[in-house]
């Protein structure tokens, strides 16, 4: 077993053991922190598909995170007020069922990613970054000026949404749901990396001209990567809103996009567990240092700087060294 695999296994074990301990020690707040970290990690797994595999530096992933959040907020608020979403030729009701919410969140984010990709992939480099940022800002201000769903104040949900057979109000059970999604996403990402699509996308990131010369269109590969990426991040947004029972435009802010990117970079771009390391590190730092000083982000900045300057593979790269290709 390679060093990185061992580390990954240890991380997964930690994600089971720590909340398990918290349950035993009756520390529900620790479980909530772990849930937050796992959801952030899921959001970052989404970005890692676009950024790590496709080299797409998107500063607009909060759009998908926020769309996922609002998918939950809109559906659940209609359900709790017993007003249909649409009442015309047919009636469209809201819902409090997580599986439906997830499906809507992922589908809506995928659609948004497709539209954004169609326009932004005409450019590359710094222009791509700026266009994705611009879409993020558009979505943010749209949400702020949309009074039907709370506008600037956001939207509160009284009771967490439900999942058949589980009590989602119980922190550990909700954590289990989030961890299951993270594991599923990591497994999917691992498969994706070794798939025919993954090979083509990886080559398209390195040498687009080569990919064209063998008969493939790099732009289409990027677009599909962005759609998958957006769907995963959108799903995490729905979970995040459910964790807080609240969604607001801040989920769509460019700071949020930046944070998702920070998770990936600190953990290690293109490393399978990079998002997990980054998100856990971030949440832990925020918790411990945030209590000590309001300026904890300075420490974060220093770590980020060190990682970018000295360890291109992020924290995982520092521990495990360079990644080897596996055929």
């Amino acid at each position, binding site marked *: 077993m390679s060093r990185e695999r061992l580390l990954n296994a240890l991380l997964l074990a930690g994600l089971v053991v720590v909340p398990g301990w918290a349950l035993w020690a009756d520390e529900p707040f620790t479980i909530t922190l772990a849930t937050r970290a796992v959801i952030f990690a899921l959001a970052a797994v989404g970005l890692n598909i676009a950024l790590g595999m496709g080299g797409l530096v998107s500063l607009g992933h909060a759009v998908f995170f926020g769309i996922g959040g609002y998918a939950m907020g809109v559906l659940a608020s209609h359900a709790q007020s017993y007003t249909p979403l649409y009442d015309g030729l047919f009636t469209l009701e809201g819902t409090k069922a997580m599986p439906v919410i997830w499906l809507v969140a992922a589908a809506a984010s995928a659609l948004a990613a497709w539209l954004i990709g169609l326009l932004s992939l005409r450019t590359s480099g710094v222009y791509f970054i700026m266009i994705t940022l611009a879409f993020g800002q558009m979505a943010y201000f749209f949400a702020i000026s949309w009074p039907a769903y709370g506008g600037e104040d956001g939207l509160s949900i009284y009771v967490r949404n439900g999942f058949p057979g589980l009590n989602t109000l119980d922190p550990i059970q909700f954590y289990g749901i989030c961890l299951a999604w993270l594991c599923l996403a990591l497994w*999917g990402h691992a*498969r*994706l990396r*070794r*798939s*025919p*699509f*993954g*090979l*083509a996308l*990886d*080559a398209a990131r*390195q*040498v687009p*001209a*080569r*990919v*064209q*010369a*063998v*008969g*493939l*269109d790099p732009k289409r*590969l990027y677009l*599909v990567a962005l759609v*998958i990426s957006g769907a995963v991040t959108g799903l995490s947004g729905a979970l995040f809103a459910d964790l807080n029972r609240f969604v607001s435009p801040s989920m769509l802010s460019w700071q949020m996009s930046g944070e998702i990117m920070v998770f990936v970079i600190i953990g290690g771009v293109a490393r399978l567990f990079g998002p997990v390391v980054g998100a856990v590190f971030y949440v832990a730092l925020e918790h411990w240092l945030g209590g000590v000083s309001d300026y904890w982000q300075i420490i974060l900045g220093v770590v980020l700087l060190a990682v970018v300057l000295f360890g291109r593979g992020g924290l995982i790269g520092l521990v495990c060294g360079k990644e*080897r*290709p596996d*055929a």
Partner: protein
Amino acid sequence: MPDTILRTHELHKAFGALRASEGISITLKQGEIHAIIGPNGAGKSTLIAQICGALRPDSGRVEFLGRDVTALPTEARARMGLARTFQTSALAMEQTVLQNALLGALGASGRPWRFFSRVSADQALRDIAESALHEAGLLDFAQTRTAELSHGQRRQLEVAVALTLRPRAFVMDEPMAGLGAEGSKRLTGFLDRLQDRAPILLVEHDMDAVFALADRISVLVYGRVIATGTVDEIRADPRVREAYLGDEA
């Protein structure tokens, strides 16, 4: 089957005031190696870019397998079997040698939209990739990272990837670039064997290689073809000697 596999008709291309192609009409026939020679900056790579689809000509046509492909993008021409190699290696350096070859086979298969199966477990792709590596003498390096290959091996891998495309024509831009005498000789032998597979349009500076391989030679100077002929004709042509070969021939 038409005898002419590839044809350009009156290609014109200008970069601002610089006329890089001025009415270039050449053909590539089944079974031949047609070499394009010319001094630096003559417009050889520009010609190749128009043939392969990376550049759109200002006017003129490119025909491949009897079809006008001038408006088709690079990837569509590649899928028809137009296999090119680059003047400076364009390989996925972080991938293994086998992965680069698999990419070629994958592109030719036209089925990259598979997200869960393992590409290395696709036996059909693997067979194509491995046989191309075998022909290029790179099978022993299949699991090596491409960045770790020597320059000469990278040039061979370029050709091997082209081989995975079920090529109907090869278009090679200075495959010998940067090779020593030994490497050139090996690649020359390899290209000689490839000729039976598909005709080769060969841009090359290495005159030993060109004279050893080519059935026909065209000389490109300042965007114009100033002569086309057999090796002996070109060697003897006074205009060519003056414009390009100098005392070398």
